[in-house]
């Protein structure tokens, strides 16, 4: 090392901050209940489209079947309508630079695409046709459900997926959020009539939101949406997930993966939601702990000890509850020490104050990356879709930035004590039980769960 202390006099100071203008959003609600948000933005000649439809499982008991059906529906909705087959639909979109992707998670269905500006009306017409007339042809649905089941089997062989699945199951118990991936056997039971029924009941305009961002005229774009989607009328209603439970999960769950050359450490707990006053302080506590490269966790277990490549922590929002999450994939031989250091850094966050420099760095990074991530059509569209889908106005972004700017060292420590202290977190490790159990037992009681043999 040539230097150990940074001589700040050598570093060019930052210039005057320039304002990051957030373009104004034009909001409308159509007579059918669809919320429409349109944002014109300078940049490339493209429009980004996001349609969010609430799609939570209505009950915990039905969550397995619902999740299986949702996973097939998100591909099968594109398989054809009364007027057009799957290929023609894809061609009609492609002509305007578009390709509709449909995804599902425990809260919603999301239709998204980019498109060339001249294609706005034709692409909205295709979208309307799918929303009101997806036909779910039986033989094509059969092919789709088989592919989905195969893809799930492949996904479940990935250690990261095994770890995420185990953590969700342990944290959420019988709540629908416990299901990260549907059971392939339930997927193989999904039939076309069930999808048509589910579509009719749940793919409805009330509670849904459409966001358009990019090279557009707001009133013309809003009119185009109204014209294309006014016929989307359905009698069902939106369903949201029930509140998440707070389960006591002491000790470490170890999911056995014989022969694994790494262990996947995962910790998770409750975090404040988007409207909770604790959120700004918790977001900054997360940053200082492990939310970015300049964090304590990265400095400790990567740059000092070389245990891992990309340790990280994050705050994740779902409709019925938000989460603080920690993850690190570490060499098998250092599994115990890596978990010890992770717990140590969590404890240090909870018990001792962060420095002003740490807080300032975390704050500037959080504000700066918010600005960067909304500085593209696609980034702004996805951000607004998530906010509007959570029932928040686009102005939330500005309010949240103001709140971040005001957070104090004391507030960060208070948030850390509440949300980052290890008793508040559920711990799961995926690894070779024969090699790592003894080391983990030195840190706490260990429950070994048999690893799932790939289905």
């Amino acid at each position: 090392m040539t230097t150990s202390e940074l001589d700040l006099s050598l570093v060019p100071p930052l210039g005057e901050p320039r304002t990051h203008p957030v373009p104004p959003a034009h909001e409308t609600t159509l007579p059918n209940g669809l919320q429409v948000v349109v944002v014109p933005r300078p940049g490339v000649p493209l429009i980004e489209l996001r349609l969010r439809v609430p799609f939570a499982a209505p009950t915990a008991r039905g969550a397995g079947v619902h999740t299986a059906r949702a996973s097939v529906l998100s591909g099968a909705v594109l398989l054809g309508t009364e007027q057009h087959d799957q290929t023609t639909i894809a061609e009609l979109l492609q002509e305007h630079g578009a390709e509709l992707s449909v995804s599902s998670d425990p809260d919603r269905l999301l239709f998204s695409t980019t498109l060339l500006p001249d294609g706005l009306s034709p692409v909205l017409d295709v979208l309307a046709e799918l929303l009101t007339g997806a036909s779910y042809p039986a033989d094509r649905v059969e092919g789709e459900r088989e592919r989905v089941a195969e893809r799930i089997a492949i996904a479940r062989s990935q250690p990261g997926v095994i770890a995420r699945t185990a953590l969700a199951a342990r944290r959420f118990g019988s709540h629908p959020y416990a299901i990260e991936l549907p059971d392939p056997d339930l997927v193989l039971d999904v039939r076309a009539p069930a999808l048509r029924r589910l579509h009719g009941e749940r793919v409805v305009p009330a509670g849904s939101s459409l966001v358009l961002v990019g090279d557009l005229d707001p009133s013309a774009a809003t009119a185009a949406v109204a014209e294309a989607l006014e016929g989307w009328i359905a009698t069902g209603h939106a369903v949201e997930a029930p509140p998440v439970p707070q389960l006591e999960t002491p000790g470490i769950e170890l999911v056995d993966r014989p022969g694994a050359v790494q262990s996947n450490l995962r910790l998770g707990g409750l975090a404040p939601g988007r409207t909770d006053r604790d959120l700004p302080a918790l977001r900054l506590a997360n940053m200082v702990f492990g939310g970015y490269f300049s964090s304590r966790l990265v400095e400790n277990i990567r740059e000092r000890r070389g245990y891992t490549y990309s340790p990280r922590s994050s705050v994740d929002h779902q409709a019925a509850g938000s989460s603080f999450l920690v993850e690190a994939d570490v060499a098998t031989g250092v599994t115990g020490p890596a978990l010890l250091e992770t717990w140590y850094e969590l404890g240090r966050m909870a018990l001792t104050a962060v420095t002003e420099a740490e807080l300032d760095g975390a704050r500037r990074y959080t504000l700066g990356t918010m600005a960067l991530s909304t500085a593209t059509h696609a980034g702004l569209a996805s951000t607004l879709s998530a906010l509007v889908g959570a029932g928040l106005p686009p102005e939330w972004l500005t309010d949240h930035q103001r709140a971040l700017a005001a957070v104090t060292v004391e507030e960060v420590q208070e948030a850390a004590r509440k949300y980052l202290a290890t008793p508040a977190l559920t711990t799961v490790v995926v690894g070779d039980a024969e090699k790592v159990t003894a080391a983990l037992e030195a840190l706490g009681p260990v429950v070994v769960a048999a690893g799932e043999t790939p289905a």
Partner: protein
Amino acid sequence: MTAAGAELTLRHPVERFTLDNGLRVVLAPDRSVPVVAVGVFYDVGMRNEPEGRTGFAHLFEHMMFQGSAHVPKMEHARLIQAAGGTFNGSTHQDYTNYYAALPAEGLERALFLEADRMAAPAITEENLRNQIDVVKEEIRVNVLNRPYGAFPWLQLPQVAFGSFANTHDGYGSFVDLESSTVDDATDFFSRYYAPGNAVLCIGGDLDVAETHRLVQRWFGPIEARPVPPIPPTGEQWPTSSRSAVVEDALAPAPALALGWRVPDPVGDFDRYLGTVLLAELLSEGDASRLERRLVHDDRIAIAQSSYVGLFGDPFDVRDATLLTTQIHHPAAVPPQQVLTAVHEEVGRIATDGVGADELRRVQARTEAQLLRQADSVLGRTLAFAAAEIVHGRAELAGELAARLAAVTPEQVRAAARELDPDTAAVLELRATGGRS
């Protein structure tokens, strides 16, 4: 040229100059958002590694984040991130890049940091040992501890090519990584990280004259060093089909990859563009030829994709490179059946050609994807820099949409004729993960 292509070219004029020490500088001003991106691209990649030093270009990339003459370890990250910016680096086949995107007022700070490590990175024994450990964990997480980890990017080149440059593992063997020394790193830096072997590209909210002055101030004092010649990485066109089988003990289902040699991405650019669009036509979206045939009609594949260039970016590689088609298929479907279907579909294009309508749709989609990438200041800046270092012309990045829009059905048909089953490389992955 389509309207969108014309607009993209016009909106991003490129300014360039060269410092006395040989550093090539490209400025791409665009003041629509108050964000600036800085990229430094060194003309050395995985293909330049000597035998016995596999993985060294990537390991050295890690060393460039370990501090430099005036910047202690961890401070590079802190100074960028505390300015509200993001940073990273990546090692490619033919170059290694370092970049940051940050609020415009952080520009000079980013230039200071890049210049400081271009002049003198902190290559110490302690840092080297630490980063060898970190790289080994990176390889474990991305390759060794997961199914399909080396498929097909580390495995297919071994079947498709002959030379060490084109076939070796760019992530590196643990034996080579562990035996790396501080002297190796110092020599590598001295040889390949000369200012004359680099391109500095700055895009976004900047004033050209002011930025010119800042670049001169921070990078001007770095001493010139000899620039190594660019070693040719092209090789003989294949004259036979080659194949190999690999076993993956973690994979639950088999997979297949085909690789065809394609025209020189730089020297034969017009023919190459036909190949790039052919890959899109084969595999992009539900209307594509292979998605329809393999996935929806015959139902012999779970997923398929085709791309040109080892990492899927056709415009950031030199010769030799491949068009790769990869397919995940159910265990019950024999690989030969999938192969036959792929060759039939390519053969149909070679024999019957492509309709103008179909090609126009593919071009519209490709154009939208290029524009989307160009919407972010960082994405645009990286594309300009890659075009400068690989093609010698940053402007090319802004012209791609228009160049692709001008490709004719006949060019795509000609590209399909070159995807000959008799010169294809085939990699078969057998799942031995004990799936019942």
